[in-house]
C-alpha cells in the first residue's frame, strides 16, 4: 500500500480539476479546492448546482470523469483494488440526507457493527465506544431502540454517531437536516457544532445559513458545476462578489 504519510501541512481534502458529466450534461466543470485540517467548509448553492454530486465524489460514491481528489494524502479516484478503496472509505465519515440507518439493527448495533465487521475491533471495545458515542449525541436512553422507533432528528444523530465510530479524520454531510421537521434541525446542528469545536475536518452541504455563519470557516458557493465563490462566512454573507451569489442569498432571505 502506497499510503503517503499525512503531514500537518498537506490539506485534508484536495480537489484538482474535478469534472463529471452524466451523458452530455456536465455536473462538475473543473473543481479546484482544498479543505485544510480542522477546517469546516459549508457548501451552498441553488438546487441542481452539483453540490451533492461534489460531496459524493469525495468518498467515491460517485465516480468522476477527470481530475483527482485526495483525502488525507491518498488519491481516492486512482485505480486501486476494492479492499484499498474500502479501507480509504472507512476513513471518511458520511452522513446522508435520508439517514440510511440499518432498520434491522438497534441504534447501538448500527453504531458498533461496522467497527466490528470492517475494522475487526473486539465486540467489547466496539460497544464501549458505541455507548460513548450515543452519550455524545445525547441518546444514551435510545441504545436499544430500532430506527423505526426514533424521530428523524434522533435517527440522524445515531447516523452521525455511526459514522464517528469508524474514527474518521474527516466527516462529510450531505444536507443532513433537509429531511427533518423544523423543530428537530437544532438538535442535529448542535451535535455538528460540537464536532466542529472538537477540531473535526468537515464538509457540509446545507441550506442552514445560520449554521454556516456560526460554524463554518469558509463557504463555497457552487453554481452550474463550478465553485463561484469561496470566502469566510461573514464576508460571503455581507459582501457576495458575484451576481449569482447575490441572487441566491436574496432568494434565501424571502
Amino acid at each position, binding site marked *: 500500500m502506497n499510503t503517503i504519510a499525512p503531514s500537518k501541512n498537506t490539506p485534508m481534502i484536495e480537489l484538482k480539476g474535478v469534472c463529471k458529466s452524466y451523458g452530455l450534461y456536465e455536473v462538475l466543470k473543473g473543481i479546484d479546492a482544498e479543505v485544510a485540517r480542522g477546517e469546516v467548509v459549508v457548501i451552498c448553492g441553488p438546487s441542481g448546482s452539483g453540490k451533492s454530486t461534489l460531496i459524493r465524489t469525495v*468518498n467515491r*460514491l460517485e465516480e468522476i470523469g477527470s481530475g483527482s481528489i485526495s483525502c488525507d494524502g491518498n488519491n481516492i479516484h486512482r485505480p486501486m483494488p*476494492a*479492499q484499498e478503496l*474500502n*479501507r480509504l*472509505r*472507512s*476513513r*471518511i465519515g*458520511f452522513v*446522508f440526507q*435520508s439517514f*440510511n*440507518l*440499518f*432498520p*434491522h439493527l438497534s441504534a447501538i448495533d448500527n453504531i458498533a*457493527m*461496522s467497527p466490528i*465487521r*470492517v*475494522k475487526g475491533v473486539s465486540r467489547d471495545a466496539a460497544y464501549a465506544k458505541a455507548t460513548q458515542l450515543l452519550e455524545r449525541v445525547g441518546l444514551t436512553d435510545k441504545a436499544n*431502540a*430500532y*430506527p*423505526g*422507533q*426514533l424521530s428523524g432528528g434522533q435517527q440522524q444523530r445515531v447516523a452521525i454517531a*455511526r*459514522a464517528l465510530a*469508524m474514527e474518521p479524520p474527516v466527516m462529510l454531510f450531505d444536507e443532513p437536516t433537509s429531511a427533518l421537521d423544523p423543530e428537530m434541525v437544532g438538535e442535529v446542528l448542535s451535535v455538528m457544532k460540537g464536532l466542529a469545536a472538537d477540531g473535526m475536518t468537515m464538509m457540509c452541504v446545507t441550506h442552514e445559513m445560520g449554521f454556516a455563519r456560526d460554524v463554518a470557516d469558509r463557504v463555497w458557493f457552487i453554481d452550474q458545476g463550478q465553485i463561484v465563490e469561496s470566502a469566510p462566512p461573514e464576508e460571503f454573507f455581507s459582501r457576495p462578489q458575484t451576481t449569482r451569489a447575490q441572487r441566491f442569498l436574496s432568494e434565501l432571505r424571502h
Partner: protein
Amino acid sequence: MISDIIVIIRDYWLLLLIGQYPNGPLGGLAATLILSILAIAFAFPVSIALALARLSKSPFLNWPVTALVYFTRGVPLLMLILWGYFLVPLATGANVPSFLTMLVTLVVYQGAFLSEVVRGGIVALGHGQMEAARALGHSYLGAMRYVILPQALYNVIPSIISVFVSTIKDTTLGYVINVPDLTFAASQINNQLLTQPFQVFFILAAVYYVICWSLTRVAVATESRITRKRAGMVPLPTAKSLKLAALTDQPS
C-alpha cells in the same frame, strides 16, 4: 368411505411411512421429507448465489445465470426431470440414482425461481442501504451479508415460503422416474387394491396438505418473531394483520 381409508392406513402404514425399507430403498413419507428438506436446504443458498450473480456487473457471472433462469422458467419441471434421468447416464455413463437426479433437478429448478424472489427483495430495498454500508467501508459482499440480505430476505419471506411449499409438492413428480417417495408408495397401494383410487389418493393429499400447512405455520411464526424484534418497523402483529404488513411495509 372413511372406514375404507382407515383400513388402508392400517394395512399399509409402514409402506406409506418408509416404503420397502429395509428390504428395498428407504421410501414413503420418509423419502418425501428427506427429499424436500435437502432440496430446500440446497436451493436456498443456491438461490442467493444466483441472485447475486444476476445482480453482478460481470458478464461472466451475469449472462450464464440469466440464461439459466430464463431457460428454467420456460421449461416444465417434468421435462427437466426426464432429461436428467435419460441424458445424464447417457452422457456420463454413470449410473445415477433417481433420488439424486430428482434432488439436483429440484435444486436447480427451484433455486432459479427462488433467485428471482431474492433478487426482487434486494432491488426493492433501494440504493440508500448499500451506499450507507459502502460509505462505512464495508465490501460489496460484506454489505450484502450484514445489511442488505437480512432486510431483503425478511421482506420476501411470504414469497420464499411459496417456493418452499411448491418444492415439497414438486417432489411428487419423482414418481415418473421411480423415486420411491410417498406418491410412489400410494400408487403401489392403488395398483394392489385397484378399486379404491379415491381413498388412496385422499390419504396422499391429506399428508401433503399437513406437511405444507405446517411449513406455512413455521414461516408465519418466524416472521412474527422477527417482526416483534424489530418492533419499530411494524405494529405488533396479530395473526391477521401480519400477512398484510409483510406485503406493504417498507423498511424506514
